[in-house]
């Protein structure tokens, strides 16, 4: 309860939570909320590149599709990519961090060196290179992002496990003959969960940005997907006349990422006020 009170006092965090909830709501009910749900793949060449009006609040794109509808429908893709990437990265990264932190020896050393190796290259460049190796599609973009994001979870869980390993309650468990998986997953993992949640929230925002970059560079979503990054990339030939074409999908990315970041910052302040580094 104390935690909830502390959270409620943190206005940016509450605002972040509200934005995230709105985004999730929009994603779930996208086909009902979008005025023209058929505009994912339809084309209406007669009304292409029209500026915003009441009927088409964000204007229309190069194929005459309603940008407002496409921004709404794009929410689904963005959230789907982010949850898949962060979820998979967690599934890979967390157990490796637990193992690496609990055992001492060449196995653990190996895990941490591999982690360092992945962290030694900027994420974006690694993701681009990986995405290119597979044929460009949403699936390969997701896989590439997962492969670049898991080391962050490993690092956090590793540090926490190292710290907890020498705690008295772990000694007690070892004496009672608890199995290693039991100690790791039932006793150490629950103690790491708050840092994992914080990292996952910030990771959601980060992944949405990265996926947009991949879409923009033509290595993520493929047409006619209503992907935000892809839409901005398509809009570039029609600038400056069709300013709305680039502007509104970009705003959608901005608000979604802003929501996750503010929520993540707020959660982090609750979990550990001294940890200030974000990504």
């Amino acid at each position, binding site marked *: 309860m104390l935690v909830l009170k502390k959270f409620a006092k943190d206005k*940016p965090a509450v605002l972040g939570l509200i934005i995230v909830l709105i985004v999730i709501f929009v994603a779930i009910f996208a086909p009902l909320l979008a005025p023209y749900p058929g505009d994912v793949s339809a084309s209406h060449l007669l009304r292409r590149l029209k500026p915003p009006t009441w009927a088409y609040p964000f204007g229309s794109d190069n194929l005459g599709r309603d940008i407002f509808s496409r921004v709404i429908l794009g929410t689904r893709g963005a959230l789907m990519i982010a949850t898949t990437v962060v979820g998979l990265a967690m599934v890979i990264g967390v157990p490796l961090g637990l193992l690496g932190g609990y055992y001492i020896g060449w196995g653990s050393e190996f895990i941490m060196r591999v982690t360092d190796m992945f962290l*030694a290259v900027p994420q974006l*460049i690694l993701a681009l290179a990986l995405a290119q*190796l597979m044929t460009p599609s949403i699936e390969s973009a997701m896989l590439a992002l997962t492969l670049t994001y898991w080391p962050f979870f490993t690092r956090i869980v590793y540090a926490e496990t190292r710290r907890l390993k020498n705690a008295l309650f772990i000694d007690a468990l070892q004496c009672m003959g608890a199995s290693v998986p039991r100690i790791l997953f039932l006793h150490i993992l629950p103690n790491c969960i708050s840092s994992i949640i914080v990292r996952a929230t910030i990771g959601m925002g980060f992944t949405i940005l990265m996926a947009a970059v991949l879409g923009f*560079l033509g290595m993520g979503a493929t047409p006619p997907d209503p992907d935000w990054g892809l839409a901005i990339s398509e809009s570039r030939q029609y*600038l400056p006349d069709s300013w709305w074409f680039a502007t509104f999908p970009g705003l959608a990315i901005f608000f979604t990422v802003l929501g996750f970041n503010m929520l993540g910052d707020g959660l982090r302040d609750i979990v550990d006020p001294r940890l200030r580094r974000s990504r």
Partner: protein
Amino acid sequence: MLRFILRRVLLAIPSLFGLLVLTFFLVRVVPADPATALAGENATPAQIAAIRHEYGFDQPLYKQFVVYLGQVARFDFGESAYSRRPVSLDIKQRLPATLELTITSLLLGTFLGIPLGTIAAVYHNRWPDITLRILSVAGVAIAAFWFAIELQLLFSMELDWLPLRGRLSSSMDAPPLVTGFMLIDSLLAGRWDAFTDTLHHLILPAMTLSLGGLATIARFTRAGVLETLQRDFVTYARAQGVPSRVLIWKYVLKNSIVAALTQIGLLFGGLIAGAVVVETIFDWPGIGFYTVQAILTADYKVILGVTVVIGVIYAAVNILVDLIHGLVDPRLREQL
């Protein structure tokens, strides 16, 4: 101190070696048949075999890796399949452009971020602070490629104040190449017109690239100053009647800058990655733009070369940050 430096540098070697293994695996092992991919769609089996032999793909993997290590050590990454020029030459020519852009962004972020963060801390929880907090969260949430396009829309296309792309106007002769840094070269040649033209071209890309760094530096400065303001020596100085302006900009800032300085080092790596996007949008002839082109055309020697160079820069900057940290705080030297 010497021991600290040595140990820190030695610690970087395994991760750099790992980077080499990773890049090697990515490009030569993961694709089922790199030779077929390189030869293109309409290649005959004989052409594929020729390429396989030329690139050494018919050798055992460990031999290929040893050859690869030797090449990297000699800074020889082979020839770009696309431009038919040595990759190391391309990198040498393009790196200064990227460094000029990233260093300008870093300076922009530092010299704006530190004062802004300090002002926010002094006006803690009043409107300058709240505005800055909102802006700094917003700064890291904006997609750089979108922000760049919006800047182009406003300042180049609509208002026509700044150039849309490139590093120098096409009507302008480039100053003689000395350092590769266009700003320095034009000054050395006494070409004032080229200097201002380069500066104009630099503004929008540097603004885009500095955004995230500016936000981070401002946040860390704010946090540091807030912490220092609580300390006893500040109260003492106040009681002594030290003017507020001197107290804050001299005593407090000096004591609270360390965390922000560390961030500046860490940011540099991120800036190099950010340059990939920014250079693509502004047609900036640096290694970021080069990387994207290489990735899009599957020019694998270029991808290898660029990844290695960026990885080395990344590692070097991180070592430098740790060393500065060790200089500032002797306790950290013991931990390593």
